[in-house]
């Protein structure tokens, strides 16, 4: 935490300011909302893991203004993001695009979950060394259902 913040504030100190400034906001509230939405997904390139929406850095401000200019020109959200990515590369996206180099990134957590669940179920499904006969099973079921037995009086924990 400290390193990040130290680095981040060092950069911020070059231009002490709030993140989004009143003077850079668009008049049209829907357009402004779209701009905010886009800028929360773009990384401030000179900061640590911070979106340009949160950042105080001059560069983030320039990028915010650029996005707003593009939106005002009538470009769609996708086009604006593509424009920024074309300029700065995939590094600028806080949500990495799903492609060759990120397949593992996106799928691995769910693959791991799937594999672990399958292994756990398989391990459980293994037949016991000495399976119970039908008669034994029936007897156990009867014992378990017998509420008057001594087990029923045990406190439930």
């Amino acid at each position, binding site marked *: 935490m400290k*390193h*990040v913040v130290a680095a981040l504030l060092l950069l911020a100190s070059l231009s002490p300011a709030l993140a989004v*400034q*009143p003077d850079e*906001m668009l008049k049209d509230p829907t357009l402004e909302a779209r701009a905010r939405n886009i800028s929360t*997904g773009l990384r401030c390139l000179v900061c640590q893991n911070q979106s340009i929406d949160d950042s105080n850095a001059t560069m983030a401000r320039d990028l915010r203004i650029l996005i707003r200019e593009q939106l005002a020109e009538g470009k769609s959200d996708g086009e604006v993001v593509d424009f920024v990515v074309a300029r700065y590369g995939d590094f600028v996206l806080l949500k990495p695009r799903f492609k060759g180099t990120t397949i*593992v990134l996106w799928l691995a*957590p*769910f693959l791991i979950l799937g594999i672990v669940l399958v292994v756990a179920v398989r391990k459980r499904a293994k037949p016991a060394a000495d399976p119970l006969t039908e008669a034994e099973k029936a007897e156990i079921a009867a014992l378990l259902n017998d509420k008057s037995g001594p087990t029923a009086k045990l406190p439930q924990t």
Partner: protein
Amino acid sequence: MTVELGHFALILALAVAAWQFAVPLVGAHNGYTSWMEQGRTAALIQLLLIAFSFAALTNAYVASDFSVLNVAENSHSAKPLLYKISGVWGNHEGSMLLWVLILALFGATVALFGNHLPATLRARVLGVQGAIGLAFLLFIVFASNPFLRLVPPPIQGQGLNPILQDPALAFHPPFLYGGYVGLSVSFAFAVAALLEGKVDGAWARWVRPWTLLSWALLTIGIAMGSWWAYYELGWGGFWFWDPVENASFMPWLVATALLHSAIVVEKRGALKIWTILLAILAFSLSLVGTFLVRSGILTSVHAFAVDPQRGLFILLILATFIGGSLSLFAWRAPSLKVGGLFAPISREGGLVLNNILLCTACAAVFIGTLYPLALETLTGDKISVGAPYFNLTFGPIILPLLLLMPMGPLLTWKRADAYAVMQRLWWAALIAIAMTLLVLVFTQRGPWLAPVGIAIGCWAIFGGLKDWMQKAGVGKVSLNTAWARFRGLPRAAHGAVLAHAGLGFVVIGVILLSVWKQELITVMKPGDTKSLAGYDITFLNEEPLKGANYDGVSGVFRVMQQNSEVATVKSEKRSFRPSNMPTTEVGLVQGFFGDVYIVMGDAMQDGRSVRISYNPLASWIWLGASIMFLGGLLSLTDRRLRIGVPAPPRPAPPAMALAKPAE
């Protein structure tokens, strides 16, 4: 002079650590009783030496002895005393010293209170602790020494980073390190058990309190860090999925899994091998967390190369402990006896699922944190992995866990009836749904996540409540008997309820703050009033500000609701000496249902830029985390954990006790 004594004590501690590592382990292997006993003596001497060394460094900080390089780089004579002290661990070298101090403290605790442990197990645990201490002390003495002198000494120090000069952050590292290092005890027990070749209920009973302590400390440490981020960084965020945060979150997730699986080992003798593995993983992640944050590798791959000696040292320590313990695990674990059969739907089954989900969630965080690093090293491609990734992977994995959580404690051991459990929980589910509908009616529309969050949170909170009532027998026995039963419940049971319910509060706070936050960015002159979320905020005036080691300006804001004053707060812009680094202090009006959060910015043409936000239910996040922490502490005081024997039934409380609140 004191500094040299502290330095010398540290080198002595290094020698003692070698002694604590080698002698008890050899003794336990060969059955030499006197050798095994050496572990206890060494652990106690170790604590004395490191405590002295730490005190010497603290003294140098308090006295502002700038002839010590570490003090000159990180302190300033004008700093308030609290931050002179917290400055000791506010830097790499000092924080490593704090780490070994806590390690020595825990080692000495095992030595002093481990009378019930089998002699060989205790010797091995202390030996493993000695090995960890040895590695860290070698690192400190040879690559990260806080006692180096500076000739000639400067007149003034460079100061501590101003944003770290904050009470919450002053105590954040000790709590976090307490958690990290506490897991070293669980780790030492796991390695010792592998060496012994035996894992039983008594072993689990020893591992559990240490894991519980670590878990509680990590919980509150992480909560403090996020609370600090919320009000100090000035944009109202509380969790950024930053690599540095993830580094502390991963051990927390695995420690949570370990906490639950150790219950199964203790009560049922099952999941032994898995529990050992979790203990190893939890501490491995703590090591990764400690080092990766401190080495700077997470900031950039290149930062690692700036100080190759440190980097190499760190890699060696990680490889030794993680690789070594996993190899030992691969070699010895198959020989451990597996026991305790259970049906898929049972308390054990539920805890297995809990473990699977927590560990996969941790894997998602791990992959997201380290993937960019791996990709850059392998292909040179630079990508970012930010919050959206974690929301989309961690979120869906943790969601089923939250949904199933209230059912877990109501499941019976060995074999349970899921239908019967749902029957007992139906009213908790009903309340959760009712609350959700109520919110939907009153808020009309909004993000779908809001009602889902409320449903999950209420489900957890009321599910916990139901667990309490179930255990006390409310509805089945008279209220007096139920109260007596409630008071007689083991503290661990109360702890579990509090931890689960606390998580419910956290979930509600996190989700609603994220989706219902309202924000206003504007320009205000003194006298202006703006409205947001039913509050009228007036900018009264500006005042010059003069602190112990900073100057600045503060804006005074009055917050009104329906024409009555809620509070008058100040939002400050500070400029710290000697760095001239600016910081903002948020004007924060905290409320149970939401916070008004005011940040004053720069002077503009016609006033000052001001950012006001309304953060609904923000305080629930830290309220919930505190409840979880308290649950952990309460559970820790459980009689069964303190003395290691089953608790005898408590005598019925006298009627007078009815008037007292619950313990």
